[in-house]
């Protein structure tokens, strides 16, 4: 199994930390992982993206131009990465702020209204974990118990009290995700 | 050693009036006759000998006339790149905090190419001693203008005299670093007379004593002659120094116990 994922959105949406938790969960279940962020000034308020690879084998290139899954959280990222999904691959997006919805017919497309839901129920800080929950419902590449372990590893211990909230967000995300176009 | 003396029977302890320190290597110095460097070397080594800290002292010498100082000082030394002695000494003192560390630098090294290292080591309050020989000229490279060259002073790169409109002002870096909270003892001395030599030695002693207290930089400037670079005899150069250098670089303590000295 090798899953090549791009997660892209605005800086501050938790794109990088979502990727980190996913990667750490992969480590917890003994898989090879890589987490390759965009870095530099573009992170500050602009777009941010991270390539996460989870695999049973040694990972070759950590930098890719085609992905099994794209998780897209703003319009700029939609424009940039819709065409980077491999044929037959998966695109997940949050429709919040999206003015041009994905148009491809050769991939599976799901939407997750996580931003709206998160602000509605007062869980904006764990919006990214809702999206992760939606992804894991479709592609359970890591087990939930390993997500918990990944959270423990990647959050400083003073933030461990937030782990239940994160886990709740994952569950909500799993219910929230909706098919848009399925092959 | 014994065979050097025609009358070894005269060498008795009761006859001893002066003895060079064993911390000076017994070899000819590379300095011009009449230059102040050799005197400062000897005072420095005498202080280490009297404090019995030679085995716990690490010296850093510069690029400049004293580039070969490590050959003359019989202690462990490092020759630094031009201007970088305070950075070199910073690491040494941080890694060997119980050792005594000093830099020995000229005006070009300390106040031109190494200004950043000088100011930042002083500002961090590193616990070592900086010995600054100021003769207003680049001696080793053949007498070019230094940051401390006086207005109107002729050098090979200011052959018609330093024009401050074009070449800027003499840099009083010692007064400048005395303003920094990281310096604890800042003084300016000279070595052209026996009493001046004694004062310089006292200042050096105090500078090394202060390293025990770990209160910051102890900085000893020695205004010195450069008879070769100034194109004078040694005696002329010392008179010229007193008449021209001292008004711009007045002698005495500038900062003591962390407090600026107010002059009347």
């Amino acid at each position, binding site marked *: 199994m090798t899953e090549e994922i791009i997660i892209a959105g605005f800086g501050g949406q938790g794109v990088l930390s979502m990727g980190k938790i996913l990667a750490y969960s992969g480590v917890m279940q003994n898989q090879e992982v890589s987490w390759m962020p965009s870095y530099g000034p573009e992170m500050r308020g602009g777009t941010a993206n991270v390539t996460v690879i989870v695999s049973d084998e040694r990972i*070759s290139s950590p930098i890719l131009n085609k992905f099994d899954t794209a998780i897209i959280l703003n319009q700029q990222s939609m424009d940039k990465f819709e065409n980077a999904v491999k044929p037959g691959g998966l695109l997940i997006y949050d429709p919040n702020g999206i003015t041009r919805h994905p148009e491809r017919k050769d991939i599976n497309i799901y939407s997750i209204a996580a931003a709206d839901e998160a602000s509605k129920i007062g869980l904006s800080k764990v919006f990214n974990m809702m999206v992760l929950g939606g992804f894991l419902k479709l592609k359970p590449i890591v087990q939930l118990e390993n997500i918990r372990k990944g959270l423990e590893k990647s959050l400083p211990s003073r933030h461990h009290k937030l782990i239940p909230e994160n886990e709740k967000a994952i569950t909500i995300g799993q219910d929230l995700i909706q098919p848009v176009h399925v092959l | 050693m014994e065979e050097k003396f025609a009358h070894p029977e005269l060498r008795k302890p009761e006859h001893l009036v002066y003895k060079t320190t064993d911390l000076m290597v017994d070899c000819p110095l590379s300095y011009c006759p009449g230059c102040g460097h050799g005197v400062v070397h000897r005072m420095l080594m005498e202080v280490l000998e009297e404090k019995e800290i030679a085995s716990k002292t690490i010296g850093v010498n510069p690029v400049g006339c004293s580039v070969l100082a490590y050959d003359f000082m019989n202690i462990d030394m490092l020759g630094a790149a031009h201007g970088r002695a305070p950075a070199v000494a910073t690491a040494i003192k941080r890694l060997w905090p119980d050792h005594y560390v000093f830099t020995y630098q000229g005006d070009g090294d300390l106040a031109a190419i190494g200004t950043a290292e000088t100011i930042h080591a002083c500002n961090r309050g590193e616990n070592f001693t900086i010995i600054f020989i100021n003769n207003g000229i680049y001696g080793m490279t053949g007498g070019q203008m230094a940051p401390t060259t006086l207005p109107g002073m002729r050098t090979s790169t200011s052959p018609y005299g330093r024009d401050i409109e074009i070449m800027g002002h003499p840099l009083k870096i010692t007064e400048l670093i005395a303003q920094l909270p990281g310096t604890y003892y800042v003084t300016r001395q000279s070595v052209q007379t026996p009493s001046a030599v004694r004062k310089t030695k006292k200042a050096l002693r105090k500078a090394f004593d202060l390293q025990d207290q770990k209160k910051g930089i102890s900085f000893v400037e020695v205004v010195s002659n450069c008879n070769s670079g100034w194109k004078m005899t040694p005696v002329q150069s010392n008179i010229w120094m007193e008449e021209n250098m001292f008004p711009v670089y007045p002698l005495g303590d500038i900062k003591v116990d962390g407090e600026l000295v107010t002059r009347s």
Partner: protein
Amino acid sequence: MGELRLMKGNEAVAEAAIRAGCDGYFGYPITPQSEVMEYLMVERPYETSGMVVLQAESEVAAINMLYGGAGTGKMVMTSSSSPGVSLMQEGISYLAGAELPALIVNIVRGGPGLGTIQPSQADYFQAVKGGGHGDYHMIVYAPASVQEMADFVQIGFDVAFKYRTPVMILSDGAIGQMMEKVYLADPVARLTDEEVVARCPWASNGRPMSRGHNIITSLDLDPAGQERLNLVLQEKYREIEETEVRFEMIDCEDAEYIFVAFGLSARICQKAMQLARNKGIKVGLFRPITVFPFPKNEIRELGLKVKGMLVVEMNAGQMIEDVQLSVGCNIPIKHYGRFGGIIPTPDEVLKALEEKIIGG
């Protein structure tokens, strides 16, 4: 044994340094490597192992702090990125001339000039051919993973002291910024001052009356003396070339074509290899792990067996000169490169192989 973590390459360097018993880190912030010093400042090893961590006023000061620390026999290191490493070149030359052990990490970014903060391999010549003045070399490791970033810290210190020479880890912004699994070695205690004195009888760390004074310098005004020093250095570099070469070969046994690449480019070539083999093209990868000493004998032998080589680098063609010198001109050896922070994609690399070597 050891500990498994998910870390950035830059963080792995910092953690590995603490665990290797490093005595001092001296650095100046520059993207994309600032995490090295940031990590150390958060971990505060000066309160545990006693390791000194100091933010210098410039890269010039930092490299001269290394000179001071190394000259007293301590294990010292710095990290920087291309423009900062350019500023350090004089100091590196002094380290080589004074035969001092030190570790320098270069997280390369695109140039020339202020360039870009994105990854690049354009500092190969500077690292391998002696970027400073005079005839000298460093031992240069080119890690291709976060694990190797950590491993070459301890290995780098070991060889630095074995040969009394500066050692460089030549990485890039992508490997510095990416996170991967890394197995960290168990911490080793720093040497005591007495152990440092015993290990480095040449060092200037306070002269006991039982020996003469030690002098750390690269100066010898006597040309005959300076030539002797140069001959000593050259002899050392020949010994390093005989004993310290490291490389990796993947799928070279049946290969008709070879990618030659170091660091991140080698990872991209591995992906391109998979794509090529899916199309029935038998291609292997030769990855120099030390770029000085360059694995010239090994690549020469490989050159006798294959039809062509594509050297893939994130620069305008630097390592290719070493490949050509090693292999000769019996087979086509071409270069494919991207510059200025652009990372070649596996598709591009495969296309370059097909067009420049197979079809060329």
